[in-house]
């Protein structure tokens, strides 16, 4: 069975060693104004690469509204 996490309240496949940076890469989240929370805890930008996400974690990657 595929292991999952919640990403913005939707299922997202989990794999060993998954980090915030990895998720951002897979999802191609390139927008500069982003807020990241794991289980409600805010993660700073410099910690994206080292923050490991565990099975079942609740990850929020919130893009702040923009547009013309």
């Amino acid at each position, binding site marked *: 069975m595929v292991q999952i996490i919640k990403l913005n309240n939707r299922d997202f496949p989990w794999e060993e060693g998954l980090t915030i940076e990895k998720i951002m890469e897979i999802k191609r989240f390139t927008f500069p104004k982003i807020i990241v929370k794991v289980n409600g805890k805010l993660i700073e930008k410099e910690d994206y690469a080292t923050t490991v996400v565990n099975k079942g974690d609740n990850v929020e990657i*919130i*893009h702040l509204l*923009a547009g*013309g």
Partner: protein
Amino acid sequence: MDIKRIKEGHKLLAEYKYELGTIERGYTNRTLYVNISDNTIASKAVTPMMKEKFVGGKGFGLWYLWNATTPSTKWDDPENEIVIAGGPACGITQYAGAGKSLVCSLSPLTDIPIDSNVGGFFGPLLKFSGWDALEIQGKAEKDVIVVIDGNKGLVTIEEAPYEAVDGHILGEQLTEMYADNEDDKRNVSVVTAGSGAEHTRMGLLNFSFYDPRRKVTRLKQAGRGGIGTVFRNKKIKALVVKFSNVKGDLNNAYDQAVINKTGIKYHREIHDLDHLQNNMRKIGTANIIEVMDEYDLLPVMNFQYGSHPDTEKIKSTVFIEKYITQGVQDGCWYGCSMSCAKAADCFKLKTGPYKGQRVTVDGPEYENAAGLGSNCGIFDPEAILELNFYCDTYGIDTISFGTATAFAMECYERGIINKEITGGLELKFGNFETAVELLHQMSRGEGFGTVVGQGVHRMKKLFVEKYGADPDFLFDIGMEQKGLEYSEYVSKESLAQQGGYGFTNKGPQHDEAWLIFMDMVNNQLPTFEDKAEALHYFPMFRTWFGLYGFCKLPWNDIVPADNKYTDEPAKVPEHVQNYLDVVYGVTGKRLSTEDMIRESERVYNFQKIFNIRMGKGLRKNDKAPYRSMGPVTKEEYESRQERYDNQLKEIGYNPEGKTTEEKIKVLREYREDQYEKLMDAVYKRRGWNSNGVPTIEYLKELGMDLPELIEVVKDLQ
């Protein structure tokens, strides 16, 4: 340019002397009324009722327009007006983005009121010259200009036969003519349209400001809805305002210190954070070209797709590195530290009447790059800049032009129209030469350009009636609603944004709501009620900028460093508070966030009822083309097959073994049903019945139960 000779051609038609007056807490309490049919010029009082219920800016514009017109008034009737009004905060120099004016008129594209916001110096200088608003009615026999001299207290209407019509030349000519010397050019602002505005329905207005570093007259655009077409139809060549003594305290604010303090805090934020966030000071709104591509939101080839490998060639860094002049403070009004009004200097034109000349191109804004570029399949930065320049100087809205041209290109590629119909033009996606030729034809008033210039709505009708096109298919792919062309974002994967476009008053422009990230990416609006709440709050909040004379960009194109710790980061609470503080500083009104929304609700619902009075504004008018909701064609579906198949599975339909056509049909039924359900939820939240009509009870609650409004809605309850 022989300014003396041009000026000698002027014939004075009317003259009006007035007391200069003073501004109190952001208001001059007067409106300048000019009728160019009978050459009346008069001062009208701004009443306490107007200030209470309509605030200023767009509120005043709509109120005057309502009183000037009847349900049967057409855009080209003399009664139709063009109203320009800044709002009480307009002209503030201590906070970023406080020089905007709002322009209102009955639109040649939609036949209902349009409002368009614009920078440049005209709005603030108009106010400092003694006027909260300028209301123009009538139709002249020959080309005229209206000149407001705020130094002398003199308004004139003058025949002006020799000036150019195109914006970039006319702006220069009149700036030169009315400035006493080089230094004085900053004190003159000119409103023009252009030659293309005369022959199309998508004409825009250019509002100028003089740029002393570049020594050119820069242009900012009131783009949407064809107000430039109304302007030229009235035979107005230009409006000129002159006021020489701009200072930071002219609004006679209630508490200047509060404004100063709020401004300093904000400027610091821009200084510290802009380069880490949106880079507005380097590239302006074009910073999001590649972002939109990455998120599959950049319209490509008439909104068929949301990204393209060639976007690489038109990404913002290309413009920054090769074209856009850097290191210049490009604010479109004093004190705007966000300074996003970027320009490409010494750009050599390759086509048209100005071929070979080096010009300053104002832009590109994101919308221009997307509309003139990717949406027409054009991925060449120089092509985009050239189209951008000609749209501006001819007075053509880049968004309507881009979306209408993309539609015509798709019709051509699908064989719905052919070379015979286009007069020999090879109207294929990616064909810059053809796109720019369409523009030149619009300027000359000939050829297929004038057909495209009628907009998507009228092209659809023509292609069906004259060339036997399938009306249903054209309805699906023609990206217009209420007669206005969609602005340049792909809304297929965000139901909330489909409503953000579809449930607007003026037509599908994103300035009411841009919810794609909150909805599609962040999943912060999972239920219909959540979406409806956002589709109430954001349109109301954003309407508010247009009541006061603020620019929307400084609100959320940068956010404070600690914004992420707030409860509702998308609203940027600290900036909202800044606005409330600045408005308190100017007017002395202490508004809460609820009061702010209420002020907008009054004007928003007024505009809604105005639409109903003009025979639109009901549920049926919020129907949207399916291309804004999902894949119309096989190619579209198959290009994102996995996404759509997965969605079908989620709704309990097994896509295995089904043809693409079958899958499109099921997906479409589902998505259209979602749109209807969203409409129900939004109408309810906005205090409207299921037909989209404001209830009398709600109007009473807003204090908008004016007899003339009740008259319009009472039989529709």
